[in-house]
């Protein structure tokens, strides 16, 4: 796992609505919660 207190690796992905989302967009604006999961149709 990435260590706590380390800089978060950047990413750019599409969200569930097809919009492009980059981590940098949230800098100084929002905290970010990332939920990783192994497979679709499994619990969040």
């Amino acid at each position, binding site marked *: 796992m990435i260590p706590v207190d380390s800089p978060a*690796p950047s990413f750019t992905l599409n969200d569930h609505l097809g919009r492009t989302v980059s981590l940098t967009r949230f800098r100084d604006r*929002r905290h970010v919660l990332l939920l990783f999961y192994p497979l679709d149709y499994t619990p969040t």
Partner: protein
Amino acid sequence: MADRYGLYLADKGITDRATVIIDAGGTVRHVSSVTPAGKRDIAELAALCEQLDAAYDGPVADPPPAPPGLPDNASLYVKDHCMFSRWALFARRNLHLEDGLPVTNVSRDPAALEHLRTVGGKPQAPALVCGSDVLYESKDIVDLMVRATQPAL
């Protein structure tokens, strides 16, 4: 992406069921895993988020303005055996618009199909009708639903 966060389980070929919290300054403040077969404790995570938010002393922007919502007179027209109509209906459900966006199935309502021809010029579904404005392309319909209901990023 999971690999960069150390959460890709290469031996299994899947991503771990894990949670990462990044503060607005771009620093990782929390990482945890419940294993792929496990279940997250949402109440515990919510409490942790509040705790981290309270401790954060950097800048955080005000929440974005609420989205405008669909016009009160918006109505969705669909037809049977049409993948584009199904797409529009899925979007309606996924965006929680069941109560605010009435649906008319023109395959079972000839008068509605004629109304669609009169208002929009084409007897074609799916269509999103807002007064005299009619969208016929399913992507345009879904995009409008998203813009109307989702906060800006």
